[in-house]
């Protein structure tokens, strides 16, 4: 554990060293890649001036909306499909095929329907996040050990009791993995949508800064996104630990 953490930190340090070398030693244009110091200073200004909070809040709301929608729909769909063998055989390949279509293609349509605000990002994030959640729920529920189900039925378990006390707990690790992937994908989709067409959000700031050739600002926002992703990842690792505790 200690060793792996040390290697991860070393990797980040090497990345920064390469960055420093690129800007100082190899003289890469500051328009493409500002120095690490310039980016860090810009990030500090963004945070201390409070400028970062509006786009951060916008993105957070969109991710929360997209993830909640994909979680509710994905779980409900997964449970509904997994309750019958026939539905699994029909729906699972269908979902897998749909999942292979790049949902970003529908983003222009979403902006037409939901506008350039939060709505279209939430729709995109939810569309992308719903598949791994539904598919993992189906796989978790359909791989429950048969004897556990037989035993519960022999003891008189109703359909609801079976779902609540046997199927869902047995499927929990797989469902949690699905939620984790769903959240990550929703986050990526929301940011992608923001960089393409939006009024607000971290992705919007990054695209805007690039348009205005403010490289330091752009990298500073990318740094913020990386930090948010790291925090999210930590939270999700907690969630996984919870799923595996038994």
């Amino acid at each position, binding site marked *: 554990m200690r060793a792996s953490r040390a290697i991860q930190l070393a990797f980040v340090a090497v990345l920064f060293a390469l960055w420093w070398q690129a800007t100082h030693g190899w003289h890469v244009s500051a328009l493409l890649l500002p120095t690490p110091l310039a980016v860090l200073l810009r990030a500090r200004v963004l945070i201390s001036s409070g400028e970062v909070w509006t786009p951060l809040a916008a993105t957070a709301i969109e991710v929360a909306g997209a993830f909640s929608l994909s979680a509710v729909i994905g779980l409900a769909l997964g449970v509904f499909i997994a309750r019958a063998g026939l539905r699994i055989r029909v729906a699972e390949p269908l979902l897998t095929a749909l999942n292979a279509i790049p949902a970003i293609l529908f983003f222009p349509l979403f902006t037409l329907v939901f506008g350039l605000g939060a709505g279209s990002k939430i729709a995109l994030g939810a569309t992308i996040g719903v598949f791994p959640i539904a598919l993992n729920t189906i796989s978790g529920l359909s791989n429950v050990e048969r*004897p*556990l189900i*037989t*035993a*519960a*039925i*022999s*003891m*008189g*378990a*109703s359909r609801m*009791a079976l779902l609540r*006390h*046997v199927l869902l*707990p*047995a499927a*929990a690790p797989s469902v949690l993995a699905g939620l984790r992937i769903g959240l990550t994908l929703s986050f990526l989709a929301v940011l992608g949508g923001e960089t393409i067409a939006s009024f607000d959000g971290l992705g919007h700031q990054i695209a805007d800064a690039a348009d205005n050739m403010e490289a330091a600002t752009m990298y500073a926002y990318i740094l913020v996104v990386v930090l948010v992703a790291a925090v999210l990842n930590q939270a999700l690792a907690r969630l996984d630990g919870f799923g595996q505790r*038994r």
Partner: protein
Amino acid sequence: MTDIAIQITEAAHRFGGVAALAPTSLSVRRGELLCLIGPSGCGKSTLLNIMGGLLAPESGRTEIFGEAITGPRPDRIAFVFQESTLMPWNTIIENIELGLIFQGAAKAGRRERAAEALAAVGLSEFANHYPSQLSGGMRQRAALARVLCLDTDIILMDEPFGALDEQTRMVLGEDLSVLLSRTGKTIVFVTHSLGEAVFLADRVAVFSARPGTIKTIVEVGAAHPRTPEFVTSAEFAVLRNRLYTELHEEIRRTMGPELRLAAASADGGRVAG
């Protein structure tokens, strides 16, 4: 009230065209422990599942206490299976309580009943352990506590000690004999062990080869609870040898003709188990 707990009349079943159980009739008396013994794949589990309403036979009738069976009857019949069917995410006491929840018992007193059952099998100390923290023998003991807690008239056990070593199995058998002599429950018990069958049963039903049906029923006269002395008695040896002879013929019959000579010695060793 009738003296027959379970009445099977001409029950037969096929799985996808393959005959698993030939037409079989059997009466299980109220309060007796009946062992089912027979070659592997002869339909013992099939018959047990039919008795418990977990499997609807293709033909034939099943009645418990004079009432036709059409599905599970958690109020009157409980199962113990060979593999552990404790929920791995629940503690032992939660698992026992879960049985009561499934059965539809009132919330009040559930925990107390579960604790009592756990004490009866000597596992009180492990109430808050998870199944994975228990040995195989302890897990089956917990499954026994769950079934006692459900407090049904009939208990159907499908090789409950099948995955355990000979010594553990002997001790659990003794415990079972003591526990059950007190409760007067009707039990059908599938086993591959001749010794276990003689030790536990009031009667032993011997199956013929697949598609199986009951070939003979051997009575064991000794009173319950049985003691370790019974195992070393002459009566025990006679009964065990009789079962061995009955079963050996059937197991021979399941072997292909060209396998017979080669299998003969290995065969004898297995049956003696």
